[in-house]
């Protein structure tokens, strides 16, 4: 029995490495970069967990996965028990195992990280979730409670909405998701590239929700096709998780030249519509040989790595501060570098220069240096006089962020918004309207998949409580 392994022996095991596709090969295709652990590697990694009493990793998880429990079952090679725990706690474990910033969450709290390397919780989550997808026959069927007769509407089929849907369906409520696009997943599908999160993973996680009785209606834009007041009449509670809105513009000259994209458009073309990626796709995308991405977050990394895969000789990150301040995950930065992405740091765009036909020809930039820390706590970039220069490019992608989507809120005048147009919600997701809850980017502005999922989970708990008190 693996339980008999001593703490000393557990401590002696070194952290496993994620097998990756070769960087020169993968930088020209859309196959998933991380290949996943073997069973042997996963069990060995799971045995590194010393099953400490305080379980700080669980505190670090926005959806409170019982990490030591599923890792413990995995260490014993009891995969169906591990999968049962994981799927109970997390509606989208195969997604989280791939896109969560574990290094800042569960893994950052792991006691093994104090002296050495933390347990690779993300890799293990992915391993167990993937195993579960391929071995559905070996999984215990989720026993649903008797129907409560209550109906909940969820606006948006992204990470927050899907998580809330799973939780509410398992509490016995009838759940209906209204999705504006023609497919599931929200940002998971239109935003996150195939090489980080294969679309089949989303399909398979959504299918599991379908088995819980969750229904999804596509092409319904709440605020346009139907309104929030209509939903409130028809349903006992509403959870709004319609995500981020339009891009924040750079407000520099040349932004509307041909060949200038906002990150959402570029990624949507390639990810959701299959442009440049799927043979049958009819949606086009300008591929570009020299592509500049403005921004330093995960979205910027997704864009720049996509540009490489679409054939860019130079795919460049243009960022005002230094690599140290970049909000992107370390893994994304590492992968991007391996794939030949150039990091042009301490550089700000001044304008986008066009040719006589209205196409992008260059990005006019200025060098920056770091000054005093600003309100965000990061050092404020200060322009270096006389350092202006032009970088020849044929595609520019703006990945600096997004604003709140106004479509739903425009038809719900009683719903309290903050000054940026985001919905005001308390820590349980409750809004200013009775029975209306909200979470994810429509509340937070631009955040992460896992924080949206955390909102979905806590709001679902609050909705459940609210419905049972009615």
């Amino acid at each position, binding site marked *: 029995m693996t339980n008999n392994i001593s703490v000393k022996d557990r401590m002696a095991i070194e952290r496993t490495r994620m097998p990756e596709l070769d960087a020169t090969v993968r930088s020209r295709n859309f196959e998933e970069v991380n290949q996943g652990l073997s069973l042997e590697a996963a069990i060995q990694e799971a045995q590194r967990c010393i099953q400490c009493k305080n379980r700080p990793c669980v505190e670090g998880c926005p959806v409170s996965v019982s990490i030591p429990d599923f890792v413990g079952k995995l260490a014993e090679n009891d995969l169906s028990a591990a999968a049962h725990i994981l799927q109970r706690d997390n509606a989208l474990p195969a997604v989280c195992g791939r896109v969560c910033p574990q290094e800042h969450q569960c893994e950052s709290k792991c006691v093994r990280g104090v002296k050495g390397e933390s347990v690779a919780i993300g890799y293990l989550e992915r391993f167990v979730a993937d195993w579960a997808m391929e071995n559905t026959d070996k999984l215990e069927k989720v026993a649903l409670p008797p129907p409560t007769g209550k109906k909940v509407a969820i606006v948006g089929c992204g990470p927050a909405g899907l998580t809330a849907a799973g939780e509410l369906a398992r509490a016995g409520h009838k759940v209906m998701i209204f999705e*504006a*696009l*023609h497919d599931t997943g929200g940002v998971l599908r*239109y935003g996150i590239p195939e090489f980080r999160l294969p679309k089949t993973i989303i399909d398979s996680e959504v299918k599991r929700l379908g088995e819980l009785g969750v229904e999804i209606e*596509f*092409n*319904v*834009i709440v605020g*346009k*096709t*139907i309104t929030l007041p209509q939903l409130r009449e028809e349903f006992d509670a509403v959870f709004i998780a319609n*995500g*981020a*809105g*339009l*891009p924040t*513009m750079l407000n520099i000259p040349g*932004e*509307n*030249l*041909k*060949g200038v*994209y*906002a990150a*959402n*458009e570029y990624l*949507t*073309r390639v990810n959701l*519509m*299959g442009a440049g990626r*799927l043979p*049958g*796709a*009819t*949606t*086009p995308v*300008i591929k570009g040989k020299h592509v500049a991405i403005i921004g330093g977050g995960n979205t910027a990394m997704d864009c720049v790595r996509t540009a490489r895969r679409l054939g860019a000789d130079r795919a460049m990150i243009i960022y005002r501060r230094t690599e140290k301040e970049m909000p992107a995950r370390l893994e994304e930065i590492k992968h991007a570098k391996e794939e030949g992405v150039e990091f042009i740091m301490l550089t700000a765009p001044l304008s986008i220069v066009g040719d006589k*036909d*209205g196409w992008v020809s260059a990005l006019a930039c200025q060098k920056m240096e770091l000054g005093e820390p600003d309100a965000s706590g990061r050092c404020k970039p200060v322009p270096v006089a006389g350092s202006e220069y032009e970088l020849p490019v044929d595609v520019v992608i703006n990945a600096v962020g997004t604003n709140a*989507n*106004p*479509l739903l809120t425009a038809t719900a005048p009683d719903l309290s918004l903050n000054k940026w147009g985001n919905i005001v919600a308390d820590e349980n997701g409750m809004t200013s309207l009775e029975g209306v809850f909200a979470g994810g980017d429509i509340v937070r502005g631009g955040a992460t998949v896992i924080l949206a999922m955390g909102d979905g989970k806590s709001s679902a708990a609050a909705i459940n409580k609210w419905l049972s008190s009615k």
Partner: protein
Amino acid sequence: MFEVLSNTTIGPSLHRMVIRAPRIAAARKPGQFVIVRLAEGEERIPLTIGDANMAEGTITLFIQAVGASTRMIVATPVGGFIRDIAGPLGKPTHIERWGRVACVGGGVGTAVLYPLAKALADAGNQVTTIIGGRAANLIILKDELAAFSDNVLITTEDGSMGRKGFVTMELGDMLADPALCPHAVFAIGPVPMMKAVAELTRAQAIPTFVSLNPIMIDGTGMCGGCRVTVGGVSMFACVDGPEFDAHQVDFDNLFARLGTYREHEAADCRLKEQVK
């Protein structure tokens, strides 16, 4: 899935399709559009809602088959289905009682103009409709528009119907005559036509509105592809539009951006022809 209830040709490559879409029919107002995606793998295409029947739960789309995707959409037979239709999107036209209005339509833009002109007439405006096209067979909806317009003026470039020339000639005559001069102008058609109308009414500062048709993907306020320069700033046709103050619109930028994928479209059409 959205069922096609009728599909008629009303001009060269121009189809009128009636489609069952009860939710959209109930919510839609003049000036709004839908995003249509025929089938898996196909593009999302913005199309203005030409008309709707709330009782029957139907919407009418006027579709000019100019590219590979629109050709496939109009090839859908009665009883066939369109996979995705999302909407109604965009802001409805602001309808008010201006008094005398001129509604100017060019090509398939006339179909987009139709619900707007009707709503203006219903609001008690005196509507003069000016429709133009290259030749008589491209003049559409003239009887439908005549039903509520005080006057319908037609121009064709080849003189095969109405006055020979452009819609701006008729509009120019109206502007020059104080007894006919409109209090507001609505123009929908090819970008050069809308630009010419805007230039014509600028001097007299007559409120002029155009409905823009930029490249769009999601249409729901997410991707930012539909941005147009209005009054020197970027605005998004899907949430801020599609109608804008014509005197503020940078038509040259809109025209240039519409050409972003021209080469791709030509190649795509050639490819589909070969497959056939």
